[in-house]
């Protein structure tokens, strides 16, 4: 059976046998770096194409269908276009920060890749405070956005950045609370253990209704955190033209664009890991025959399937809903999501203590 775990272990032993320990580690770093960067590039291409097709079908259009087989190379063509485009820096911009901002956003997205388990034991860094690490790093992206908005010397950008700041900081709370509920249920911050705890069923099903509520809140909160419609106030096209990246063009814009999609992938991967069991196949309690059949599907396919399902849901949101206003956005967080999240967390705690979950 195909397994990413075997490949990674094989590579590791091969490296350790042929190189001294330090250089083996360095070689591992290099391999991981190259893999992450290429994963990002592939993700960007795939997700942008997916978004275009999803939006097209929802809008009764055909979508890209000319470049490559059924338009699959369209995003590649667009990337090439962005690469050769001139990257303008507006007069009066803070040039250093202006250049730095896309990298901050991008790097924070890349760092988030570290604790995500793609398959059994296929994980860059199985840190024991994985969930904490994720919530810490994911708040870093806002610095990049604020940097971009401020350094552009453009009022639209500034407004967009300020909106984004208020939005991400508030929604971090709800996302954190719903992540916490899973931490309480599984009793661990380590992602591999959280997944292991879902061996007899995913938390979404094991945790009764409170887990479902936490899941819904999580999806809403991460949609807001990644600046996706209906919460795309930071780049609200009809209000702020393009928000914080109004002045960006060429490759710098492409980095922002890529980071947006990479962020979507990451938050969906986290959602899939926490609530839907990550690479863990669909298991039902004591049905061992059923569970064994499910095990024949490799973990990585389960992981990507779940992640892309969540990504599709987030895209579905975007192509259906109107945008909220900034005050309504904060209302939604502070008046609805946060209180519901807190009560929900209390319920889950009670449930976990009394052992009502499966």
């Amino acid at each position, binding site marked *: 059976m195909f397994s990413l775990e075997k490949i990674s272990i094989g590579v590791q032993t091969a490296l350790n046998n042929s190189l001294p320990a330090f250089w083996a580690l360095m070689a591992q770093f290099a391999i991981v770096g190259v893999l992450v960067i290429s994963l990002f590039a592939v993700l960007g291409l795939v997700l942008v194409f997916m978004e275009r097709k999803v939006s097209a079908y929802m809008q009764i259009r055909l979508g890209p269908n000319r470049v490559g087989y059924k338009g699959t190379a369209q995003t590649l063509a667009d990337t090439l276009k962005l690469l050769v485009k001139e990257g303008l820096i507006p007069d009066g911009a803070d040039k250093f920060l202006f250049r730095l901002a896309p990298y901050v956003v991008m790097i924070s997205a890349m760092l988030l890749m570290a604790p995500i388990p793609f398959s059994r034991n296929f994980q860059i860094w199985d840190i024991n405070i994985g969930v904490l690490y994720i919530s810490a790093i994911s708040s870093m992206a806002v610095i990049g956005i604020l940097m971009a908005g401020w350094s552009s010397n453009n009022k639209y950008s500034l407004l967009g950045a300020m909106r984004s700041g208020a939005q991400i900081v508030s929604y971090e709370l709800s996302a954190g609370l719903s992540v916490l509920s899973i931490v309480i249920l599984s009793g661990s911050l380590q992602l591999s253990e959280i997944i292991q705890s879902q061996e007899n069923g995913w938390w979404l099903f094991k945790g009764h209704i409170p887990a479902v509520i936490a899941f819904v809140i999580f999806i809403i909160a991460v949609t807001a955190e990644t600046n996706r419609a*209906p919460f795309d106030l930071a780049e609200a096209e009809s209000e702020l033209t393009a928000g914080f990246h109004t002045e960006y063009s060429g490759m710098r814009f492409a980095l922002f664009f890529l980071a947006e999609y990479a962020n979507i992938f990451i938050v969906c991967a986290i959602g899939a890991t926490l609530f839907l069991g990550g690479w863990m196949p669909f298991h039902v309690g004591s049905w061992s025959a059923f569970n064994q059949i499910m095990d024949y599907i490799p973990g990585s396919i389960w992981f990507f399937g779940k992640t892309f399902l969540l990504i599709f849901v987030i895209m579905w949101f975007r192509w259906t809903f*109107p945008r909220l206003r900034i005050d309504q956005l904060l209302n939604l967080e502070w008046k609805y999501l946060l209180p519901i999240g807190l009560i929900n967390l209390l319920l889950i705690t009670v449930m976990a203590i009394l052992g009502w979950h499966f």
Partner: protein
Amino acid sequence: MLEEIGTSAEGDLIINVGPQHPSTHGVLHLVITLQGETIKKVEPHLGYIHRSIEKMCESLSYRQFIYVTSRMDYLSSHINNLGCALAVEKGLQVEVPRRAMVIRVLMSELTRLASHQLWWGAMAMDIGALTPFFHAFREREMINDIMEETCGARLTMNYMVPGGVMFDLHPDFQKKVKEFIAHFKGKIDEYDELLTGNVIFRERTVGVGKISREDAISYGCSGPVARAAGVSCDIRKHAPYDMYSELKFDEILHTDGDCYARYLVRMQEMRQSLNIIEQLIDNIPEGDFQAKTKAVLKLPKGEYYSMVETARGEFGVYIISEGAMTPYRIKFRSPGFSNLSALDHMAKGSKIGDLVAIMGTLDLVIPDIDR
């Protein structure tokens, strides 16, 4: 003309919205004074597409000037043309054949539907929902096809001529319109599903951009903007032209005067337009489609004013004739111009997002404002 773009003396942020901006639908330029996200003042700067159509018309004959008016409010070009044709007919004392009148009303209502559909999609896009735009265009495309078949063009038809219409109806017209009615009746409920009931949409529009009845009158608002504030101002009811006095339809009135009321007025107007088309489509009388008119039209000395209800409101044509081949002076009263003047009043104290919603529900067509 433009202030030094920066911050005002009080430290407020001054932002240029437009002339190139996704939500101004054209080249409208608004200079807005902001305090944080709250709007203190909106000041429109017009003229980016000013062509001085009124001056142009002074050198065009009474047949020729009609086509120019399609370029004002291009979304209700039929109705604009109709207004001009009515004004000329008033001067010429021509009796328009009944068939022509029915065709004119049918075309006007189809235009109104097409315009409202485009508005629906564009307004949804302003508010942030991108999908409705394409759904609206699906139905609009059907109307455009009908127009193309009968009038020969999709947007600027120049179909109305003094004394009637330019061509007879296409043989397929009735069939296609019936198909359209059957199709659209199902789809308008989908419109409601997608947007009307949506909680985010309601949040964005209910209570936003309020204008009271008195203010609406004082600002000269007309059309759905005024009717949403409770001003009964439908020209089709108050000064019926062509066949409208014989038709059964309701004037939609709401009293809230906010964006949501304007939205509802237009949505219900679409149903009313469908109703009018249904009444007429099976009762198109036989006969001429154009009255006999002289090759060279000369209006007797005098003043002629005709009003029609376009999709945006009251469109007036004021012709002053000195008895020559060309008008001495023409004034077009465009609905968007007066509606725009109320924008500052509506948007004061609301957020930037609201400004976009208000502009969306005002349904501004910039060439109509600039002329």
